[in-house]
């Protein structure tokens, strides 16, 4: 009995985690443009490596971003459709939440410490969210964090209050987005850089068992780039005779 976890918010990361949180198999490929080609063979790969059949799955977890759109959708449509095919729930967890939970473990954070997670949003911006550490380990041993601000998308220089010191505890800065803008963001030594699919799975199990709703809606945070059409110019330029008319 295991959950399959998929995160395509940055690289492509897949993990199989037992219901008790034990890691059974994991794969990741640092590939930003070919998520759709990479993902399915990796899923087949972790199932084979763990010696599990699709019938052994109890849920499929998908990272909901925020993230560049096309890659994000590959993970979410795969998670939803695989869950439908196997007949189990599809559970969504924001990919930034996984990074915050990873930070608690990787950086040995204490309650009331805070985590600023920043990932690459391209176009000189970062996706970010800030969290407060609630517990280093709940009853399942998985750290508990609660969101304080975000998720949102911003230029690093505009993060402002998101970088303010917390009321108690210390602030750490994690995520690939922080590493890209060293003049504005100082990434904490030893900080996690990319979401880990196993951490994503453990957060999903914790929240599922707490009875929380785990929607798989993508966190786009940006509207599609579209413009209302403008009138086409004439094919034949208006002649002098009509200048001053409606041209």
């Amino acid at each position, binding site marked *: 009995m295991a959950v399959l976890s998929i995160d395509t918010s940055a690289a492509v990361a897949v993990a199989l985690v037992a219901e008790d949180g034990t890691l059974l198999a994991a794969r990741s490929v640092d590939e930003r443009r070919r998520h759709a080609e990479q*993902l*399915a063979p990796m*899923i*087949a790969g972790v199932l084979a490596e763990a010696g599990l059949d699709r019938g052994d799955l109890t849920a499929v977890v998908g990272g909901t971003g925020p993230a560049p759109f096309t890659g994000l959708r590959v993970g*979410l449509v795969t998670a939803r*459709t695989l869950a*439908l095919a196997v007949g189990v729930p599809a559970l969504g967890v924001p990919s930034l939440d996984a990074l915050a939970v990873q930070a608690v473990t990787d950086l040995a954070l204490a309650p009331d410490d805070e985590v600023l997670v920043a990932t690459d949003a391209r176009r000189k911006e970062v996706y970010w969210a800030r969290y407060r550490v609630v517990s280093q380990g709940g009853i399942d041993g998985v750290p508990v964090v609660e969101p304080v601000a975000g998720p949102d998308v911003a230029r690093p220089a505009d993060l402002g209050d998101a970088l303010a010191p917390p009321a108690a505890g210390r602030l750490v800065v994690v995520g690939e987005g922080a590493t890209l803008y060293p003049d504005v963001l100082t990434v904490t030594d030893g900080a996690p850089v990319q979401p880990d699919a196993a951490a994503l799975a453990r957060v999903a199990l914790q929240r599922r068992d707490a009875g929380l709703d785990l929607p798989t809606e993508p966190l786009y945070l940006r509207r*599609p780039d579209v413009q*209302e059409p403008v009138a086409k110019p004439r094919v034949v330029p208006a002649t002098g005779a009509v200048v001053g008319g409606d041209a």
Partner: protein
Amino acid sequence: MASGDPLVLGIETSCDETGVALVRGDELLVDATASSMDEHARYGGIIPEVASRAHLEAMIPTISKALGEADVDLSEVDAIAVTAGPGLVGPLTIGTSAAKALAIGLNKPLYGVNHVVGHAAVDQLVDGPFPDRVMALVVSGGHSSLLLVDDIATDVTELGSTLDDAAGEAFDKVGRLLGLPYPGGPHIDRLAREGDPTAIRFPRGLTAAKDQAKHAYDFSFSGLKTAVARWVEACQDSGREVPVADVAASFAEAVVDVLTAKTIAACRLHDVETLVIGGGFSANSQLREMAAKRCAEAGIDLRIPPIRYCTDNGAMIAALGSAVVRAGVAPSNLDIGVDSSMSLTTVTV
């Protein structure tokens, strides 16, 4: 029903329609479609990101709708077919990712297939198996192609395609020029019925003698569109009211004349006695009338499925998938990508 034939689930997401269908043999069990067309109309064209977002949201509901209407359980499905190209990358990626997930989750083979060939294959659901050799004219908002089909699953030759705008695309652009709502095709068709198709002699692209060596079966509608724009502007500049119905009818006549003349010529050259017309533009009434007339004169059997089969849908992909599975073609690998400009001689990937 040929109950011994495999049950194929087809998924189509090359543009703005999310289509899911089930086909067994040449029988269509169900065809479910969700469309994001209404979201694109205000922009005057398909916005890939808007379509991609809609595909993600529509995928599970559309699969569930198809299964529910056919009273089929996913476990009964024998193979998954999906559009791998040509089309818009973002939308194609949603469909292929979903199809791979089904293939893994059901432990059934995956077949990535060609969208344009699917527009021809769908006719087998309506008019029965193809004879040994057919000509297929696929005309839509995205494609205008002439295919020689010796075997729909394994042997398709592209004789020609548009060098610029697709037929439906030219209609949409002329529609905008005439101030008609998007998409312009149906509006031009309706107006054209009230107009005189011989009122204005618009140019026939790639029909001159000098074009026959290299482009005998290719199409070009961009110059025609510009000619219409020039004619309309000149009319407006002279202060006359634009005879919209006559312009629409004459423009459509020019498009349909070239499409049918080249197609009939290709049928004669290749000794083909059956012509299939597919794609959304085959809804055009002038095309249907002229094709019927010219095929009758040439002794060619014309097959045009009802309009609901001609638009983008899951049925065309399930139909092609069914043909491919029955032909014993090897399944696709799980690492297939999408190909926005897939060659039309590629039936499966």
